[in-house]
């Protein structure tokens, strides 16, 4: 074999990697690194960037709007743990006891196919002053608490978290029921023979064996809560007066409404660090189950 041929044989395998690496490198890795760099600059996207060190971060933490968004993001994280994760677990347990499991599952899972925008539009009309939500409140005799929910602080954040819960409960239910199906028969039979009640079986056998599923679902809920954007942007744009913004919404506003790219990038960096912190755990699970294949 000639030297040239051997050389081309050496590089050939890398050609298979090239398309994917180009796409990911140019459109994902480069922008992520670049955002980090831009976060140290004052820049409107047109003029020359002015390097100001940590100035953007200093401005950010001195801005009360940042802390409002931070607090709301914490609410989103807590809310997306309490509502869709807990309800998803309960739904998975209840549905497993019933005939017609599949039909019920698909019905609860249906919102997964709907986009954040579609869901946000549906629910923002329901929450409006003359919408379905208030009509139901009047019907059940709670007419005195009727209000335009999305214009009221802090009810608007709660209302949006409920919307999000409606969207994600089915997804979490599916994940929990996949986890439940993976439980081997023997411990369940043993519990049955020992005469354990169904409550005991559930708390002592089923739930502990679903610990790893639960862990991943919880971490993903935290990450999704941190990233809350679509629903907020469509339902309130973070208003009124930035009262319902999240970190992701603030980032978008700084960058693409007032065109402070440096400040927007700083927001993106802070958000990324929070998400990465939560993701470390998720990655450990994923990589533990992924063969290295060397």
């Amino acid at each position, binding site marked *: 074999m000639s030297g040239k041929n051997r050389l081309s044989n050496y590089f050939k*395998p890398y050609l298979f990697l090239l398309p994917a690496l180009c796409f990911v490198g140019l459109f994902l890795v480069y922008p992520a690194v670049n955002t980090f760099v831009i976060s140290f600059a004052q820049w409107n996207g047109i003029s020359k960037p002015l390097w100001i060190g940590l100035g953007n971060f200093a401005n950010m933490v001195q801005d009360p709007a940042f802390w409002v968004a931070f607090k709301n993001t914490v609410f989103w994280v807590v809310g997306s743990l309490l509502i869709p994760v807990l309800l998803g677990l309960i739904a998975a347990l209840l549905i497993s006891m019933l005939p017609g499991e599949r039909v019920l599952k698909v019905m609860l899972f249906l919102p997964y196919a709907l986009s954040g925008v579609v869901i946000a539009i549906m629910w923002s009309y329901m929450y409006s002053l003359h919408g379905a939500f208030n009509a139901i409140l009047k019907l059940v005799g709670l007419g005195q608490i009727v209000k335009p929910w999305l214009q009221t602080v802090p009810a608007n954040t709660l209302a949006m978290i409920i919307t999000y819960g409606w969207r994600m409960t089915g997804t979490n239910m599916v994940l929990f029921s996949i986890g439940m199906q993976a439980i081997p028969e023997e411990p369940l039979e043993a*519990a049955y023979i020992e005469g354990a009640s169904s409550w005991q079986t559930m708390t002592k056998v089923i739930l502990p064996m679903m610990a790893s599923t639960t862990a991943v679902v919880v971490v993903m809920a935290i990450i999704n809560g941190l990233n809350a954007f679509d629903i907020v942007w469509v339902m309130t744009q973070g208003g009124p007066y930035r009262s319902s913004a999240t970190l992701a919404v603030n980032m978008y506003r700084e960058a693409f409404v007032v065109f402070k790219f440096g400040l927007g990038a700083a927001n*993106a960096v802070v958000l990324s660090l929070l998400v990465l912190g939560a993701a470390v755990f998720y990655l450990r699970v994923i990589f533990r189950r992924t063969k290295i294949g060397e």
Partner: protein
Amino acid sequence: MLGIKKGKLRLIEAFVFLIVILWLIVWLFPLWNVLVSSTKTVKGYLGSRPWFFALDGNPIRQFYENVLRGLQGSQRGNGIGPAFTNSMIYGVVAVVASIFSSALAAYALVCLPIKGRFVYFVILFSGTIFPLQVYLIPLFTLFQRTGLYDTKLALLLVYTAICIPFCVFLLRNWYLDVPIEIFEASKIDGASELQTFLHIFVPLSRPPFVTLFLFQFTWVWNDFIFGITFARSRITRPIMALLAGLQNMYSNVGIPAVLASTIVASLPTVILLIAFRNHFFKGLAVQYGGSSK
């Protein structure tokens, strides 16, 4: 599952059934509300109960009119019709491109002699971790500088790239379970690496290809933030970006037409979900748990 003894706990079963039925009624109410509202005139919408049809006209005809108004938009030409086509193009082209380039990469990472293959895998996989916000500013300026801003090509490139990490992840897991003998035998028969990939690995990958297509098509179709950031005009905007604009206060198509449009915009993904629900369940299991089956 819970070891319920037959006969003894019928009552509990009936009780659970009741709870689940009530739950479903609450859960499906928003969908019912949208469906009913989209059969009303603007006047009917304001004047009737949100849980029932307005009785001032023919609901089916009114629904049809609302759908048309949503597709065509008001006089300002803000209908979702063109955006529906755009998103079809984005969804199909970008997802096929990303599945194909990911399959090539996954095949190379598993079967071909590559030094530091795990590093390449981590680089390719890294794109699933960051919040989307981290990509926006550099891509926006890149597209502005290269004249790609507000073109279909820009969105196709971004959508292709964002789908690759998960595709590589799933396909690599799939190929790791393919017996190495298949690869060796094909090599002995004198097939090149590319021929082995095209004639053996691609046919073997049908199940993950289907799962990936459904998953990533749904992702691209439902994307909002890339759409509003990189596309501005009607000929490029994807469906969700346009739908959000249809709802805002400057639009005057009326609430029932907006809601009818949300139904139209959700049809493709809802149909896919119902038809291929098991693929969706499988895909979720992989995404969240890392198992390949």
